[in-house]
């Protein structure tokens, strides 16, 4: 006698298996489109993945402001911003005309990276799978950028990175679907070294404090190599845990080490704290080896400068962009951002705004949202009028090459935003390197991925 037992457990099991099948990520099952999230209606969705919580939340908030502004301008609202100044290498004006991208109205979704790689991947994945984002952009940490870039490569969408300064993003971790407009550690080193040699001489002994993660390592390496090339000696390099809070026990051995320069490879809150500690322990008034002791901060941002208060006065660093630049594009952007929000944009806001416009323009020129077509349109693309002068998106590693700003904490600020003064605009030739330069070696773009 056969028995058909329909047990409760059996039903649940079957149900669970069926449910799991239905819930399989649509990324892997959807085959109807030529590429992931092909926009079929009259709108297109972009995914803005920024830190809305965690230590870089202030940077993230500014990035989001820039994205909103960019969407407004793309859809023909507001004053149009840098759409009015954006030109191609040939001198022709951008094909974007304020009626969306390829005639589709631009919409967006946002995600919170929390400045953590796993959270950033989860929010990017959700924007791609649930919200149908055809491009992901944002981030304020190289750890996050590298992780999300790899995810976008697998999923078959374009990744336009936000603030990420590690060499690895377009070095050993470069991906065909990913593009970086922001500058990198190597460029900071190449731009800073001559200015430092000029200001502090070539006979200096440097002591590095380095944030203990990806970005810290490449920045330390870049600054070390470029300063050693001008004759400096590196006395010591100490790794500090992320978010250490009080750096005094790292600062106090510096004076006894025989060093006369302290390089702080720190960012965000860490930089604010370590610099404050260094000033409290009298490093700025100290004498070593018969010279005035000096501090260098390779990557500066205005938001950090605000946190560090008057401690940054006179300290050299580098930055991707600053609102006080006098070219027409920068002024246009500062005006349109400043009038909307009441304060000038940060370098993070600038690079995110520019990345959105560059993506939109590439789609427009390619005539398609297809990732491989966009990649082709961006590779070796030359443009101007976006605030950094003539710029090249190099095809070999998807890194943008443009002038780099060397800045200094301003001695007599005229307003609460007037914290950095531009010391030198380092021409692009001086910061250009070969795609297989040792600091960037070991990576491969692979081929572009259309996904579905």
């Amino acid at each position, binding site marked *: 006698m056969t028995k058909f037992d329909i047990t409760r457990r059996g039903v649940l099991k079957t149900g669970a298996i069926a449910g799991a099948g239905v819930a399989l990520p649509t990324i892997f099952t959807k085959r109807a489109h030529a590429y992931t999230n092909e926009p079929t209606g009259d709108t297109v969705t972009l995914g803005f993945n920024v830190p809305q919580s965690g*230590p870089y939340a202030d940077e993230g908030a500014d990035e989001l402001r820039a994205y909103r502004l960019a969407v407004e301008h793309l859809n023909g609202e507001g004053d149009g911003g840098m759409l009015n100044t954006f030109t191609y290498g040939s001198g022709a004006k951008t094909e974007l005309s304020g009626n969306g991208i390829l005639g589709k109205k631009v919409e967006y979704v946002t995600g919170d990276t929390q400045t953590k790689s796993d959270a950033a991947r989860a929010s990017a994945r959700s924007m791609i799978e649930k919200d149908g984002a055809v491009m992901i952009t944002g981030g304020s940490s190289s750890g996050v950028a590298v992780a999300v870039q790899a995810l976008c490569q697998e999923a078959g969408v374009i990744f336009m990175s936000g603030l990420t300064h590690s060499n690895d993003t377009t070095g050993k971790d470069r991906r065909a679907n990913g593009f970086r407009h922001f500058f990198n550690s190597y460029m900071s080193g190449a731009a800073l070294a001559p200015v430092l040699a000029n200001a502090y001489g070539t006979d200096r002994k440097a002591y590095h404090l380095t944030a203990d993660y990806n970005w810290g390592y490449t920045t330390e390496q870049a600054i070390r190599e470029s300063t050693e090339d001008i004759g400096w000696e590196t006395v010591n390099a100490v790794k500090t845990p992320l978010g250490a809070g009080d750096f*005094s026990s790292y600062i*106090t051995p510096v004076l006894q080490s025989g060093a006369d320069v302290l390089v702080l490879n720190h960012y965000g809150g860490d930089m604010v704290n370590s610099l404050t500690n260094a000033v409290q322990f*009298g490093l700025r008034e*100290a004498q070593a080896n018969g010279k005035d002791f000096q501090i260098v901060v390779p990557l500066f941002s205005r938001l950090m400068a605000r946190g*560090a208060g008057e401690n940054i006065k006179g300290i050299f660093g580098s930055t991707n962009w600053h609102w006080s630049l006098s070219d027409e594009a920068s002024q246009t952007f500062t005006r349109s951002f400043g009038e909307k929000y009441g304060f000038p944009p940060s370098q993070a806001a600038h690079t995110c705004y520019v990345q959105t416009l560059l993506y939109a323009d590439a789609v427009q020129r390619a005539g398609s949202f297809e990732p491989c077509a966009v990649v082709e349109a961006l590779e070796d693309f030359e443009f101007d009028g976006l605030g950094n002068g003539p710029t090249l998106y190099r095809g070999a590693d998807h890194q943008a090459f443009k002038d780099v700003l060397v800045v200094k904490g301003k001695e007599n600020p005229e307003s609460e935003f007037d914290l950095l003064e531009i010391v030198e605009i380092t021409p692009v030739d001086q910061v250009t390197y070969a795609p297989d330069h040792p600091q960037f070696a070991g990576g491969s773009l692979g081929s572009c991925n259309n996904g579905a």
Partner: protein
Amino acid sequence: MDAIILQILNGLDKGSAYALIALGLTLIFGTLGVVNFAHGALFMLGAFVAVTLNKILTLSFTTVDETRTDFLGNPAKIETPYVEAWFGPEVGGWMIEWSVPLAILVAIPVMALIGLVMERGLIKHFYKRPHADQILVTFGLAIVLQEIVKFYYGANPIPTPAPEAFKGSFDFGALLGFDPMTIIYPYWRLVYFLFAMVVIGAVFAFLQFTTFGMVVRAGMADRETVGLLGINIDRRFTIMFAIAAIVAGLAGVMYTPILSPNYHMGMDFLVLSFVVVVVGGMGSLPGAVLSGFLLGILQSFASMSQVTSVLPGINQIIIYLVAIIVLLTRPRGLMGRKGVMEE
């Protein structure tokens, strides 16, 4: 030698903060029997009392100065703090400059109130619950307080400078006869250490020499008997909770010039302060103070580059390592008494 003195000095200020927080934790644990994971948040709230006072004192009204322009080229808006307008630039400027010490006066009533509300409003309901429940609810409270502070003050650290008179550093080495510029110590850290000693002394004197303190100590030893004698011990314990909150808050107020406060500074200190309490011995006030300074100094030594080059990463685990060794050799901690947490 000079390096050793430097690290001892260096450990003193952090040790002071650990000791002050651990003192409050032990007080609360000894009196109310609650493991208060929100104690770090009280330290953080204290720091933000200083930030808030600074913000209030620098509240400004705007006048338009046609002769200057802002970043957009519009006429510049000049901000003048109200206190400078009311009391004259001299007194107003002095008040802004001395906002951190002034914040002590504000922090005492504010922290007492926060402590009372916290104890009466929430923690009271968890006395009879297991320690795990108490930890969960106080930890949850800490997260809520953090997020509230983050919502209003943002995520980045807010610089809150010390008065100009204490801003610099002095050459401690030269005083002891070492080469000049070998042992540099900032004034404010010395102030912090002295301040911590005064607060700790006051708490001990209060417990030792007042009737109130005597009753509290008796209650810590045997709550039931004291209750049977007709003394309202619960009310006194509530007041002790408020005092512990004040101590944590003052520790936070004075720490702001050393470390620009942000919303999660409390968490950073809380975990280590617990280790401090355990190493010192649960329920022992002198133990908490002693191990606070001890672990602060140890941590400072462990982050010397001579040490980290031999044992990389030791600076981040040294405190836990010491805690394990102490607990293995002296399970009740350095100065723990028998019978605490052992029923």
